[in-house]
């Protein structure tokens, strides 16, 4: 066996970031953009205008089964969630389906924990790691609601789409999971969908966000914002 290179994980937006001249860093085995332009500009865009970030490395699990809720409640001491509601990265998509978002690299442990709990409880629950299968793009900033209203028919007003809720919808003619995850009071939405559509969604957002002077934002700015 001869492998000379260490495996590195790339997001579907890697080539776009390269073209934009981003500098890269590594995050739990993923190569991700650190800064596209300047840290200051990217932070300002996120806080005052509109920013776009590639968060594909975030862990993503699906937990399916009629008993999924009880497994979650037993394992994580989670309170009851209604459909579309979320708490601490766990979002109920259907009565029998939960989406679990973890920080990068934590998905394996989470999966193991939930699988073990399901087996112990003798419950028919399937835990699937779909981290590699979904692109995750976060739009951040005061203009993010306006931007999304150009590509998606959902009502993004906080009264209709509160923080920590998740909805599956058509977005730019594709199916996406949209999670509201504000950052320090700044509106922010994660758009999670097929990785093969990631570049298309990114380009669509950039085009739709041109009127808001949307700016790609790297890991450094996200870290500065507390993400």
């Amino acid at each position, binding site marked *: 066996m*001869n492998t000379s290179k260490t*495996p590195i994980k790339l997001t579907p937006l890697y*080539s776009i970031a390269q073209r934009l001249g981003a500098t890269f860093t590594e995050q739990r085995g993923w190569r991700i953009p650190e800064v596209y332009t300047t840290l200051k500009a990217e932070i300002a865009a996120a806080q005052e205008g509109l920013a776009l970030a590639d968060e594909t490395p975030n862990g993503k699990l699906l937990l399916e*089964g009629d008993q999924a809720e009880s497994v979650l409640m037993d394992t994580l001491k989670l309170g009851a969630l209604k459909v579309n509601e979320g708490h601490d990265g766990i979002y109920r998509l259907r009565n029998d389906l939960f989406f679990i978002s973890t920080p990068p690299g934590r998905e394996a442990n989470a999966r193991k924990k939930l699988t073990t709990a399901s087996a112990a409880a003798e419950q028919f629950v399937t835990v*699937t790691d779909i981290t590699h299968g979904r692109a995750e793009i976060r739009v951040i900033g005061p203009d993010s609601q306006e931007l999304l209203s*150009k590509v998606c028919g*959902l009502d993004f007003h906080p009264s209709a789409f509160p923080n920590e809720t998740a909805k599956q919808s058509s977005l730019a003619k594709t199916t996406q999971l949209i999670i509201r995850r504000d950052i320090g009071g700044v509106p922010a939405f994660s758009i999670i969908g*097929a990785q*093969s559509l990631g570049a298309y969604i990114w380009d669509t957002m950039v085009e739709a966000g041109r009127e808001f002077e949307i700016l790609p934002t790297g890991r450094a700015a996200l870290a500065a914002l507390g993400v």
Partner: protein
Amino acid sequence: MRDGVSPHFAIIYQVSGAVIGELMQTEQDTLKTTPNRLHPKQGEVIDRSTTIRFTFDGVKYIAHPGDTVASALTAAGVKVLSRSFKYHRPRGLLCCAGHCPNCLVQIGDEPNVRACMRSVEAGMDVRAQNVWPSLNRDLLSLTQLGSRLMPVGFYYKTFIRPKKLWPLYEHTLRHAAGLGEVDIDTPSGKFDKQYLHTDVVVVGSGPAGISAALGAAEGGAQVLLFDENSALGGHLRFTVPLHSSLPSQVSKDLPELLEALSQQPNVTAFTDTSVLGWYQDNWLCAAKGARLFKIRTKSVVVATGAYETPLIFDNNDLPGVMLGSAAQRLLHLFGVLPGRQVVIVTANEDGWDVAADLQALGVNVAAIVDEREHNACSSPYRDGLANIGVPVFYRHTIREAIGSSAVSGAKIVRLDGRGEIAPATTQVLQCDLIVTSMGWTPATELLYMAGGKSEYSADRAETVPVSTPPGIYVAGRAAGIHAVDSQITEAWQAGSNAATFAGFGEFDELAAQASDISEPRRTSERVCVPGKKKRFVCYCEDVTDEDVETAIAEGYDSIELLKRYSTISMGPCQGAMCSMNTIHLCARANGRTVQETGTTTARPPIAPVTLGALAGQNVEPVQTTPIHQWHLDHGANMMVAGLWLRPNHYGDPAAEAVCVRKQGGLIDVSPLGKLQLTGPGVPKLLERIYTNQWHNLRVGRVRYGVMCNDEGVVLNDGVCAHLKDETWYMTTTSTGATAVFEWLQWWLQSGWGEGVHLTDLTDTYAAFNLAGPQSRTVLEKLTARNLANKAFPYMRIRSAKIADVPCQLLRIGFTGELAYEVHCPSGYALHVWEALMDVGRELGIAPFGLEAQRILRLEKGHIIVGQDTDAMSDPLSANMAWAVKLNKPDFLGKPSLMRISAEGPKQLLVGFKMVDPDVVPAEGLQVVAPEVDGRLKIIGWVTSSRFSPTLEEAIGLCWLPADLASQNGASFTIRMGGDLKAAHVHHGAFYDPSGERLRM
């Protein structure tokens, strides 16, 4: 200020043609002056601090920012802006509000632009449309001479005989028809859409609209306020409200209304935005330039105002005949005089307001022609204007506009006691402008779309809403309320009610009740003055009152039939200018009342909208594999497959195919559908979904399967692997992945989901097929897994680390060679692919694309579902009977397949070779056979064909009659253009029929 004139006349404006400081001295000889531009005044929307230039039919003009094309041209004295649709008569500004077709022009490559609504931009190239050779000398106007040949509905009657002349007629008519030109080479431009959600939508921002918005917002509702004009205020922008006594909730005049609005955070206003239609559940559609809004609201306030109704009289379309509101817009908004000597024709106080404005601006009011008696006129300007010598003709009306290309005079007539024209009372008045103010038609299209009803009030000669559906409210002139103070009061309550309906506050039944408002009559029932020349009812389609009478006489006597036959209200104005007049004419001709005659159906769009805005962004989703950039970097020729972009080849597909046969190749098959099925119920589900058996597939094994629908038609195919006890891994065709996932979901949710969980992993794993005799050697260099044939035989699945990445290996292939399909997590795709290429390159491995794969699979005789099969193909006929187990318990399609099996397939899919090995028939060509009479009959068709670089001859798959197809070597004929080419049936795979190379 002049004696006897009300304070309204205090502001005296001067015509300033000679003092235009706008003109650049160096270009005086080329730029047109603006003799009709007034001195600055309060309330105008133009910015006089700067000028911009544009051209109209090649002539240079100047304008100020804020000018519309029409206002700038009128300032320059241009009266003729367009030619009419049918007779090519000159047309000038009529409504100045975007409601009529008279100022449609071409701007750049954009046809049918309303010049009165489009702001001038620097460098604009404005041209008249539908003219030949020019606007002022349009030879097509000679069609008027043949107008007897073109009566209403002429296209059903004339230009039919003699038949042989039809090509000439058609050529001529096509040349003459249509408005504007579209340059198909012009870039389509950028269009987009936006979804809006709110509690209350208010359509129209006149005093009623603003007040309704305030009423709703003060109730706590989020409000979207739309107006098609460039600023809020409606008619208050160009008229002065009379007798205002405002309620405490709202301010007293427009600036104060706007100030109140600006202080209201719950209201978002959209100007230059036309609401196009109302759809079920308060779904509204609106357009602003290149953007389409889709609006979801809980309640709607229709405050769309009213259209000023034109009067029908001889030559009523002559440039210089203008509605009163149009004249006021020009004066107040743009500081432009519409004429120098005016005859006002009116039946209400609004006409007197216009007369007062014009008089105050120095225009010679040649006469006020009021069809009412002197004592019926209650205008505050009545005595003042008379006192300063303005001639007033009571009980008179206009009979004819005089002039050839513009108004030069007016013939007026006296009315007798019955309101008819008194004989021998015609007088001629010199004028260059005829302003008509005869009344109003409420703009209730949205109300009608929403299910609201109106009734005609004979007392007021207007329709008045009598019922509205829940959540729909009407305010202002649309509700028949003309007095501004009443508009504001009632609209505020309508807005408040709308907010309550939307869930804000308690419903106050007492407050919600509409007040009993007494409105004086403002609209005349006289819509047409008889005469001897053309009198236009419909400006869009050049339909006259005589045309209407003819149509009714021919039997089209219901208003809906009349509309369709005459095309009235089907042009750009969509009835705004003509609908009410037509109803009156129809009622009179039929001897019925207006109420009995009814109205036509209102449909979206009620305002012009570009196809681009409706179409939206010109983007379609594109799926790319995780190594898309690698393909581009290595010269791949990409092709679209479903939504996917995939490498078709890297330069030489035949060489790629040969390389696979001789050494090996690597293809990116990431688009393959990949589904995970878990649970104890999976085997049962697979037995139902696939046509073959699955309960006996052991862990670690892979099996090919075909899916059918319940009619036995092939839906999809692929392999399914048994990973571990209750975990299965299914692959589907690349373009069918989503359909199969939805198909399975449908069955899972329809009773077959017990003990099954389904997850789409198509994007989670990238997949590469390493095929060819060297593939094992390559893979062995990258994994510790024992790949020997015995340890890992054909149709098996194994977990293995490839280049340190955990993968699934499937020993399958579409090419007929020893092959491994490597499924790895997508994030690692480039690493794994490059590792395979790095190692494989030394062994002669090269990437190959879809074209090479298609050649290779055809050499093996493998079908492609969707190419070799269609919506009628069953697996028994498609040469896949081996994959159908009719003896197993029920599965999708079994009853149909049982019947086909019993009766025997009528057509079969078989391989063929050409007698001439170099002739490759195109896919889709017909297989033919001679009939008794010698004619050729279609008996089949080619579905796949290629020149095989391995066999060095043309091969293919085709559908043939079963008796012919079942004879190996049987001859048949393929029609290629005018030639017939011989082919013969080939049973089995063309290459490696025993399948040894797969299992080596």
